[in-house]
C-alpha cells in the first residue's frame, strides 16, 4: 500500500465530490445517533435502570437470615475485625468495584453533574459485569475540588476491591488518579486515561509490526493533549520511543518548551508541562502541518470533526503513514479519505469501521486480572502488559491493515488478557494472591462466562422482560 500511488488519484479528484462523501457519511452518522438516543430514552424509561442487586446465596426461608444476617454474621464481622484482609474472602469485596465520577466530563457532554452521569455509569457497570464478570457499583459523587474527590473515594475504599474512575475532567483526573493510587491499597484505574491509552498502544504495536517499524525509531505526532494522549505519550516513552521524535499538538499548536503558555502549564497541568520539556526535539513550532512533516505515526484523540486532519497532512508524512483518528462519534478524518490520501493503516474509535480502538477491549479484562490476583495497584507495566497481550491475539488471528486489533466479538481474548494482567502483578510483587497462569485463566473465563449465563437465565425466566418494540415513528414506517 504505497502512499504515493494511492494518493495520486485523490489529488486529481474534485474536492467537491470528496466533501459530498464526507457530509453524507456525517449525515448518516448523525441520523443513526439520533435514533439510538431516542431508543435509549425509551428503554431507560421501560427498565428504569440497567443494573440491580441480585442475591448470590440461597434463601430457603427467613430462618436462613440467622446465617446471612444476625446473629450468625457477627462472627464473620469479628473475624474481619481481627484480620481486615479477610474482607476479601468473607464478603463480595473481592469482586466489587466502584465506578466513581464527579460528572465533570461525561462522554462529549462536558460538565453535566453527578445525576446526569448516572445512566453512563450504569452502562459501564453493565459492561463490567457482562464482559468482565465484575460487580461494579455506579457511584457519581457530588464534589467539586480534587481534594474532596480524593477524600471521598478514600473513605469509600473499605467497601471495594478496586476503584474505576470515570469521566473526570482533564487535568484534574491526573492528580486524582496519582494520589488515589498512592493512598489506596486497592487498584485504581481511570479508563479515559489508561483504557484508551492501552488500547491505542495495542493498535500501535501491531501497526508498527505490519509496516516493519520499531517504536524506538519512529517519529510520532499526538494530536490532542487530553487524558488519553498524555498517557499514550507516557507509555510510548516507557516503550523506548525517542522523546525527541515525539511531538504533541493541541489547540494552541505544537507543544514545546518555549510555548507562551508553558509556565501556566507548569502550575495547572504539570503532566503536560513535563512532556513539553521532554518532547519535540529539533524544536518544531507551528501547528499540525509543521508537526506531521516526515512523521510515521499520527495518533489523534482530539475533536470530533472530520476536517481536523486534512489529506495534505497525511501526504506530508513519511511513506506508509499510520493514522489513528480516535475522536468520537466522528473521527478527525474519515477512514476513506485517509486511505485515499495514502494512509497505510487507519484506526478509529468506531465499531462501523475496521480497527476500532476501544477501551472495552481493555478495562473488563484488566479489572478481572487485578481482582483475581488481588493486586495492590495498577502500575504502567500492567497497562502495557494488557496492551501487549491484546496485540498478540490480533497477530495470532492474522494481522492485516483491516485487522489490527481483536474486535469486541472475539471475546475469547478477554480471559487471556485478564490472566496476563494477573501474571504481571505476580511478577511485580503486588499480587496478594499469587496463582498460576492456568488458574487465573480458568477463573477469569468461568466468571466471564457466568455473567452471560446469568443474563440469559434471567431473560428466560422473564425476570428481565424482553425489550419492547421501538415506538413507531410515522414518517420512517411509510418508506417500507
Amino acid at each position, binding site marked *: 500500500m504505497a502512499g504515493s500511488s494511492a494518493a495520486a488519484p485523490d489529488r486529481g479528484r474534485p474536492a467537491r465530490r470528496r466533501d459530498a462523501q464526507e457530509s453524507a457519511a456525517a449525515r448518516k452518522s448523525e441520523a443513526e445517533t439520533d435514533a439510538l438516543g431516542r431508543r435509549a430514552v425509551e428503554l431507560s424509561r421501560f427498565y428504569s435502570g440497567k443494573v440491580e442487586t441480585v442475591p448470590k446465596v440461597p434463601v430457603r426461608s427467613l430462618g436462613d437470615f440467622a446465617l446471612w444476617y444476625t446473629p450468625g454474621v457477627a462472627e464473620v464481622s469479628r473475624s474481619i475485625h481481627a484480620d481486615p484482609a479477610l474482607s476479601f474472602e468473607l464478603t463480595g469485596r473481592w469482586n466489587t468495584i466502584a465506578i466513581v465520577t464527579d460528572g465533570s466530563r461525561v462522554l462529549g457532554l462536558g460538565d453535566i453533574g453527578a445525576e446526569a452521569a448516572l445512566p453512563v455509569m450504569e452502562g459501564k457497570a453493565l459492561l463490567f459485569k457482562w464482559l468482565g464478570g465484575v460487580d461494579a457499583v455506579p457511584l457519581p459523587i457530588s464534589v467539586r475540588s480534587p481534594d474532596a474527590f480524593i477524600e471521598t473515594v478514600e473513605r469509600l475504599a473499605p467497601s471495594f476491591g478496586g476503584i474505576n474512575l470515570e469521566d473526570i475532567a482533564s487535568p484534574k483526573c491526573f492528580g486524582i488518579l496519582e494520589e488515589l493510587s498512592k493512598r489506596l491499597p486497592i487498584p485504581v484505574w481511570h479508563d479515559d486515561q489508561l483504557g484508551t491509552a492501552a488500547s491505542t498502544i495495542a493498535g500501535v504495536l501491531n501497526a508498527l509490526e505490519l509496516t516493519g517499524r520499531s517504536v524506538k525509531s519512529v517519529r510520532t505526532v499526538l494530536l490532542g493533549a487530553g487524558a488519553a494522549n498524555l498517557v499514550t505519550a*507516557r507509555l510510548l*516513552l516507557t516503550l523506548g520511543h525517542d522523546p525527541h521524535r515525539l511531538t504533541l499538538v493541541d489547540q494552541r499548536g505544537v507543544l514545546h*518548551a*518555549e510555548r507562551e503558555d508553558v*509556565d*501556566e502549564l507548569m*502550575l495547572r497541568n504539570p*503532566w503536560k508541562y*513535563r512532556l513539553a*520539556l521532554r518532547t519535540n526535539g529539533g524544536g518544531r513550532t507551528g501547528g499540525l502541518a509543521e508537526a506531521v512533516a516526515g512523521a510515521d505515526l499520527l495518533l489523534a484523540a482530539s475533536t470530533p470533526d472530520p476536517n481536523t486532519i486534512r489529506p495534505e497532512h497525511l501526504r506530508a508524512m513519511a511513506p506508509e503513514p499510520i493514522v489513528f483518528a480516535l475522536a468520537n462519534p466522528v473521527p478527525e478524518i474519515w477512514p476513506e479519505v485517509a486511505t485515499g490520501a495514502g494512509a497505510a493503516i487507519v484506526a478509529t474509535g468506531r465499531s462501523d469501521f475496521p480497527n476500532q480502538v476501544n477501551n472495552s477491549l481493555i478495562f473488563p479484562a484488566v479489572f478481572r486480572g487485578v481482582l483475581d490476583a488481588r493486586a495492590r495497584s495498577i502500575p504502567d507495566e500492567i497497562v502495557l502488559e494488557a496492551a501487549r497481550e491484546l496485540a498478540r491475539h490480533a497477530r495470532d488471528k492474522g494481522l492485516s491493515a483491516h485487522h489490527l486489533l481483536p474486535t469486541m466479538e472475539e471475546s475469547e481474548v478477554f480471559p487471556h488478557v485478564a490472566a496476563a494482567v494477573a501474571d504481571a502483578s505476580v511478577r511485580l510483587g503486588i499480587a496478594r494472591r499469587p496463582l498460576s497462569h492456568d488458574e487465573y485463566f480458568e477463573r477469569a473465563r468461568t466468571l466471564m462466562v457466568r455473567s452471560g449465563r446469568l443474563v440469559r437465565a434471567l431473560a428466560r425466566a422473564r425476570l428481565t422482560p424482553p425489550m419492547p418494540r421501538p415506538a413507531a415513528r410515522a414518517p420512517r414506517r411509510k418508506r417500507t
Partner: protein
Amino acid sequence: MTASNEGAPRTTETQPLPIHLRPARPADVPALVGLLLRLKRLNEEFDPLLKVRDDAEKQARTVLEANLGDPKAVVLAAEGVGSEKEKVVGFVRALLRERPFYSPEWEGVIVDIYLLPLYRRRGVGEYVLRETTAALKAKGAGVVTAEFPAQNEIASRFYAKRGFRPITAVHARSL
C-alpha cells in the same frame, strides 16, 4: 506519572551550567521584554490583582531601558552556552532601595527572575542568586530581598532554602 518522568532531573552543581550571566545590554531589550512578560503572565496566574495590563509590553520596554542606564539597578541577562551562546534565555532585574528608618540602609530587591523552562534547575537558580547578590553588594546593599506573588510556593521554597525569611508582608484588596 512519577517523579522519574521529570524532564529536567535535579542534579548536583558539578554539571556544567546551561547558562552564563552577564550585564544586560541595550541590544538585549527585545528579548528581555518577551521574558519579562512571561514572568508577569506567570504572576497573573497567582492573583487577579496581578492582572497584566494591555500595554505591558510597551511598559516593559520603557522600564528595562530606564533600568539599563540606572546605577541603582542591576539587570543581568542569562545567555545559553555552546551553540546557544547568542540566545538570551533568562534574566534577573534587581533594584537598590533606600531604607530611611532601618539598618542596613540599602536594600537590594530582586524584583524579577525568569528563566525559560529548559534552563531551570541543575543549580541554575543558585548561580543566578549568587551573581545577583554579589552585584547588589558591590553597589552597597547590606540586605538582599526578593519580591514575588505570595501564592508562588515554588519561589517561597526556593528562597527559604537559601536562608531568606519573610520580613514584611504586602496585603491587598481591590477598590
